[in-house]
């Protein structure tokens, strides 16, 4: 089964979700709607709604709750992207100007807060208190993780464990929660929602490691942003941490990172990228991403053998090999 087949199979529901997303961010203030729709219309993989829908196949069908959970999680994700672009001072995302760059930081803050509130308004239509406890707890962890990340900017002493904890909060939690809440929305048994959470967590970890690899090795035309954006922001990712462990590369990398930091990220980072690409850090990070993919697939084992299970396996394989 191909990834496109999975999207095709869920196309009808995804179209409903797309319409509901658009509906949710419409307001009677033109610029607020326009700024919110700007990111929405840029597309995106909608991976969180897909996870919610697939997890929703493991229980008693409840499209109403399922769509609300999916719309809410995607809005939370989009609100965080709008704010992240202010934090990262990013001018483009998905090849288009960011809200911050098309309007300004203040408009981006208001648009992000508006989208976050819309997400809460949508999810609050689901009366299951446990869903709210799970989601809100994860959101606090994600927000804490984002703040803690500041401590690690340009920190060359951080460990692999520090990095993994950071991406757990930054990315894996929301994907894990997408799977878990999808299962909870259809009243799936607890062991099923736990297995799906574990799948989402491991897939999410692999997703972020892959994302960090693409930032160093990806094609700017496909990614829609220049390579090396992470290090320009002071964000030291797994391949770099592995490379710093290599005594042959360490001194050169430390010098490069110190220069990038001193220049506030505004310099030619070609030599830094060349050093990282030439070392073994890329391969080691790829290997770890693959281990997470294996764990994700293993987490699905106790689940009934339905089409959604095969789709989740297929998505996990795609995450491990994606180049965009």
């Amino acid at each position, binding site marked *: 089964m191909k990834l496109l087949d999975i999207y095709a199979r869920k196309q009808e529901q995804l179209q409903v979700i797309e319409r509901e997303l658009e509906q949710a961010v419409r*307001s*009677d*203030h033109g*610029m*607020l709607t326009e700024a919110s729709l700007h990111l929405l219309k840029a597309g995106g993989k909608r991976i969180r709604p897909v996870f919610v829908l697939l997890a929703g196949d493991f229980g008693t069908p409840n499209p109403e709750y399922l769509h609300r959970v999916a719309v809410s999680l995607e809005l939370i994700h989009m609100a*965080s992207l709008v*704010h992240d672009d*202010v*934090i*990262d*001072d990013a001018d483009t995302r998905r090849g288009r100007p960011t809200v911050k760059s098309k309007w*300004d*930081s*203040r*408009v981006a*803050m*208001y*648009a992000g*807060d*508006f989208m*976050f*509130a*819309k997400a*809460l*308004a949508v*999810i*609050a*239509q689901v*009366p299951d*208190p446990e869903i*709210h*406890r799970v*989601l*809100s*707890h994860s*959101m*606090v962890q*994600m*927000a*804490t993780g*984002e*703040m*803690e990340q*500041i*401590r690690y900017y340009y920190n060359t002493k951080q460990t692999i464990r520090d990095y993994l904890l950071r991406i757990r909060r930054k990315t894996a939690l929301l994907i894990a929660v997408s799977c878990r809440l999808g299962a909870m929305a259809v009243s799936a048994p607890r062991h099923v929602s736990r297995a799906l959470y574990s799948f989402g967590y491991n897939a999410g970890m692999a997703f972020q490691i892959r994302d960090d690899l693409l930032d160093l090795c990806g094609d700017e035309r496909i990614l829609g942003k220049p390579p090396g954006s992470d290090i320009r922001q002071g964000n030291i990712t797994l391949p770099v941490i592995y490379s710093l462990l290599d005594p042959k590369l360490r001194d050169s990398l430390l010098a490069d990172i110190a220069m990038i930091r001193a220049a*506030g990220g505004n310099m030619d980072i070609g030599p830094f990228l060349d050093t990282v690409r030439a070392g073994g850090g890329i391969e080691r990070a790829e290997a770890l991403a693959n281990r997470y993919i294996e764990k994700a697939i293993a987490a699905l084992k106790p689940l009934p053998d339905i089409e959604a299970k095969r789709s989740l396996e297929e998505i996990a394989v795609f995450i491990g090999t994606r180049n965009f």
Partner: protein
Amino acid sequence: MIRYEVPASIRKDLEHDLILQYTELPKFPAGRAGLLRLFLQAATDSPESLRELYPMAASLVQVALDTHDLVDEEQESGGKIGRMTQLRVLAGDYFSSRFYQMLAQAGQIDWIRHLAGAICEMNRIKLQLYLRMRQLKLTAEEYVQHMVSIKSVLFQTFSLLFDHPVRQIWPEVLKAYTRCEVLADELMRAESPSDWTNSWSYWYILEQHEEGERASIAGNIPDRDRLKELLNRFGAVHRLRKLLEESVGTFKDKLAALDMPHLMPHLVRELREAVQPFERLASGMDPSYCSR
């Protein structure tokens, strides 16, 4: 002033070491939180835990969204986004997620929805105000009205908890009190050059000039002497005091609706005392006023 002790659980959130290290937070809305708490105690039979939770949740969202108002790329050197701005974005997001968690843990799902609606409305008003400010198309009175709406919209939502007639009276009392707070804060910062841009005095003085002159006045931050001269020339501080005095009067008038034996005479007494600092400030008797 209305007394409100910031609960330890949110004090911990507000005093996160990274936040304290990199940025100052906006003022905690203690007055409005205290006002809501007084009304909840006097006019509802909600459990004590909820009487504590609602003002706490609303205050935390207010601080979250007001923290995001501090995000301004021009404030940092060279236009480059720095740690202070990053922390302001992240702190606001953190407080928002904590507000959701608080209500979720208490099973208050309807209140998540009500407050989410109020957050949307607040952002609509904030953006409207921001755009009018950028176009220099704002009067001092419009500025006050926008600020009152921004500061009261979350708390106003709680009128749903009250029965008639308090349900109708609560938004009016809240808005009248918030107007006093806004004007008192404006009086306190009127003579500070660093607070000049987008203050009430700024809009009041711009309003006295022709449209063609406004951009040059708006573009220059006056030094202390020049600011004093501007304030004196246009009688800005006198006007502010007068407005505050009138607003205290309006607040007291609103309280009259509550002053019936079967309603809440003790609440009315307490609220009358609560606005005394505003009265003293309006009369120039209390230059040490601080609404924190």
